[in-house]
């Protein structure tokens, strides 16, 4: 861009953030910007700045009554879909809240995964399964490895997280087409090995999903996730 030197908006992708909110980017550029929102908090803050400030321009567009049956159609599509329950202030609905040390995340994650693979393979006759539990696109929250031979699963936070006492993190196994089954509470600060209950072991297969939800201390009172799911990922054969 020959003119980019003149705008003074290059830093932190501020120009792209503004262009994204203004709506002038093409489809591919929009996807790239959205990936960046998920990965780069400075960029996300820039987008939020523009959304809040430029949003006022929407006042220029006259309101137009939607068709009378529009609400009924929306309500029909809500179906059984329930939003993730709101928690106090919604602040800690993401791993970011738990994450206090933003240290070389990818390097640590890679080391964790390597360790897990080693751990999982050591005694195994059956091939181990691994899962990367992502918080969002490109943002890993946990790595897990299951060893079907002895019915254990080891889960490691991908970045250093810190717990807080008012809430617990609960791990769930979700077989394809089934409801979540609890695998117990996990520690946000360090790797933890869980025993998979015997009746769930047949479901530790590729395509089952692991998920981590935020729950009251002691875990979900209902046997189903009650708080927001902060990370999830599919099991795959190593």
């Amino acid at each position: 861009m020959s003119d980019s030197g003149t705008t003074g908006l290059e830093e932190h992708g501020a120009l792209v953030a503004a262009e994204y909110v203004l709506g002038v980017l093409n489809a591919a550029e929009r996807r790239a910007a959205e990936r960046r929102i998920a990965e780069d908090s400075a960029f996300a803050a820039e987008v939020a700045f523009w959304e809040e400030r430029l949003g006022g321009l929407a006042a220029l567009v006259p309101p137009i009554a939607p068709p009378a049956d529009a609400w009924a159609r929306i309500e029909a599509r809500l179906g059984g879909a329930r939003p993730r329950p709101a928690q106090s202030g919604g602040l800690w609905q993401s791993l970011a809240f738990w994450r206090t040390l933003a240290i070389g995340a990818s390097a640590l994650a890679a080391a964790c995964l390597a360790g897990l693979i080693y751990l999982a393979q050591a005694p195994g006759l059956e091939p181990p399964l691994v899962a990367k539990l992502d918080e969002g696109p490109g943002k890993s929250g946990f790595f897990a490895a299951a060893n079907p031979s002895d019915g254990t699963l080891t889960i490691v936070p991908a970045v250093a997280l810190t717990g807080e006492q008012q809430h617990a993190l609960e791990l769930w196994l979700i077989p394809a087409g089934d409801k979540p089954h609890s695998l117990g509470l996990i520690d946000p600060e360090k790797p933890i090995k869980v025993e998979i209950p015997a009746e769930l072991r047949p479901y530790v297969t590729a395509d089952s999903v692991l998920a981590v939800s935020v729950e009251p201390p002691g875990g979900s009172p209902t046997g189903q996730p009650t708080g927001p799911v902060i990370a999830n990922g599919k099991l795959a054969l190593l």
Partner: protein
Amino acid sequence: MDASARRKQLSAAIRRAAGGDRAALRLIYDETAAKLFGICLRILNDRSEAEDVLQEVYLAVWQKAGAFDETKASPITWLVAIARNRAIDRLRGSGLVRRAEPIEAAETVSDPAPLAEEMLVSSQQQARLASCLEELDERTAKAIRSAFIGGSTYEELARAWNVPLGTMKSLIRRGLAKLRACLER
């Protein structure tokens, strides 16, 4: 009820919707559907597409309500962003032909106060935006308004205004940089 009270009510409704309260979603819909439908229709210029996107918008609000942070965003700008993003994505993916408005059609605002009332944003914030746009030359301000309202790409704007693509990009980019500096002051 004044704008500030309505804003608080809308924020509270989003919080309740995050907890699964359908009546709260209905309240959000009643307060904002006409505004958001107007926005979608303006971008898509196709009533049935706009109706479809409007449904998606409130489904997204239902799903994403827990992520709304009223300390960071006004409820209406949060909703407007969801609606515009959905409508623009539909437009880009659809092959619908949407002609950006010619330069003469881009609106100007003289008195921001009633708009602030309608938008439930603070009149101070709205006034700031209006005065910062006024600091730009008229052509640049029009280009920015027109881009925002129509959700048009640089290419579409350049065609509609009959200027080279590079000229349109420079115009808008310089305008955004100036606007950023002014809004931060």
